[in-house]
């Protein structure tokens, strides 16, 4: 589903990704953990080309994406959903308008059909009663659930989550994680960058530990959390668990 090969990225002189290889299989939930600055968010943003990178390739659904081909990138993004740390809802649109914006404007499906899809996904994230509300009227947890519905509205084949609960008050983290858990249960392919180790342990099929622009260790949650082989992974986990 996703194949990343020898990905390297610089921010000016800073070498943030130093050669990443990553495979994500259909219906797999991959959770990426690591300290701030390890490059995990950057990696995620490179997958859908929100971030430009210098070297390497990203293949999605069997197609190697040409980074200079805008049309190809736009087409790819219609089936790669993304959820951001800071929600990035469109503040001038209602909740429902946020969700149908992509389907109507990008996929060009009819308003009526889009509304149907929009309502379906809003119900899924438990926000049917908020469809006429503006984002400013919602709590952080509700905003993030709308953002998930917005990404799902495009009916993507894979979802990327970039620290989806890091900007939330602690009591609101649960509602977002529970929506994500349901999604994983339904077989959605997911790549999740997070600091929620409970979620990683419970939901992930595979956990990847990144440090200093490299994948240091990967394995099942049991392998990573119970028997980390690499010393750096052990140190990181001992600091946070």
């Amino acid at each position, binding site marked *: 589903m996703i194949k990343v090969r020898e990905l390297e990225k610089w921010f000016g002189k800073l070498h943030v990704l130093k050669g990443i290889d990553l495979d994500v299989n259909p219906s797999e939930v991959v959770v990426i953990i690591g300290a701030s600055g390890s490059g995990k968010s950057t990696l995620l943003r490179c997958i859908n080309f*929100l971030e430009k990178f210098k070297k390497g390739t990203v293949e999605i659904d069997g197609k190697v994406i040409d980074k200079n081909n805008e049309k190809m990138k736009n087409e790819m993004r219609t089936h790669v959903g993304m959820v951001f740390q*800071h929600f990035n809802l469109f503040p001038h649109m209602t909740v429902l308008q946020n969700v149908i*914006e992509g389907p109507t404007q*990008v996929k060009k499906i009819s308003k009526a059909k889009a509304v149907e899809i929009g309502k379906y996904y809003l119900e899924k994230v438990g926000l049917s009663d908020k469809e006429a509300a*503006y984002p400013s009227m919602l709590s952080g947890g509700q905003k993030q659930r709308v953002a998930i519905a917005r990404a799902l509205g495009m009916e993507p084949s894979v979802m990327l989550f970039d620290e989806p609960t890091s900007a939330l008050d602690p009591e609101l983290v649960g509602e977002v994680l529970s929506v994500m858990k349901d999604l994983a249960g339904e077989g959605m392919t997911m790549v999740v960058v997070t600091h929620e180790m409970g979620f990683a342990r419970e939901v992930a099929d595979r956990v990847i530990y990144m440090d200093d622009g490299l994948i240091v260790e990967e394995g099942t949650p049991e392998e990573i959390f119970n028997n980390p082989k690499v010393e750096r992974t052990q140190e990181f986990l001992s600091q946070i668990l």
Partner: protein
Amino acid sequence: MDYNVSVLIEYFPYFIPAAWKTIEVTALGILLGMVLGLLTAFSRLSKNPLFNVPARLYIFMIRGTPLLLQLLFLYFGLRSILNLEAITSAVIALGIHNGAYIAEIFRGAIQSIAVGQMEAARSLGMTYRKAMIRIILPQAFKRAIPPLGNQFIIALKDSSLASAITIKELLLKAQQLASSNYYMMEMLTIAAIFYLFYTSIFTWLFHKIEEKLAVSGSR
């Protein structure tokens, strides 16, 4: 000093054509300024030097010189080449002048929209252009309203400089009448009342627009 209140009422009607002239120059100047401003803002934001260099140069030259100079330049300076009518010169000068400021207002408003908005739009598969039109510009316009209102009021008052190139707007009218009836204070008072009336309307109008936009979704 004598101040004759009855003169105010007596001469008030004489100002009405001049009041229209002021509105004409201001309105057309603002209209031209808005068009130039929007085009320049986009050129300025473009990564292509073919667009952004001329935009920078335009803003640099116009913001760096007085409007009065620009008016004289266009009307008297270029008379041998362009031979524009006074009113045309006034509208063009006011338009070009305001265009530079309005461009910076729009540019600032567009750049003030969080990067995440563009990223979210692009992550849905939108093109840059579509994301601009659907997501960024509606928010940017809203943010541009207060400084635009400010700029329109400045343009209105700046239209008085057109008196220097023989446009019979409010200020020139006041001076001309005063030079024959010697009621300088009274004539200037009448002109001032008109300006205050106009600026009140602008202020009220922009307040209404802001109120309306605030209702349909806040930040």
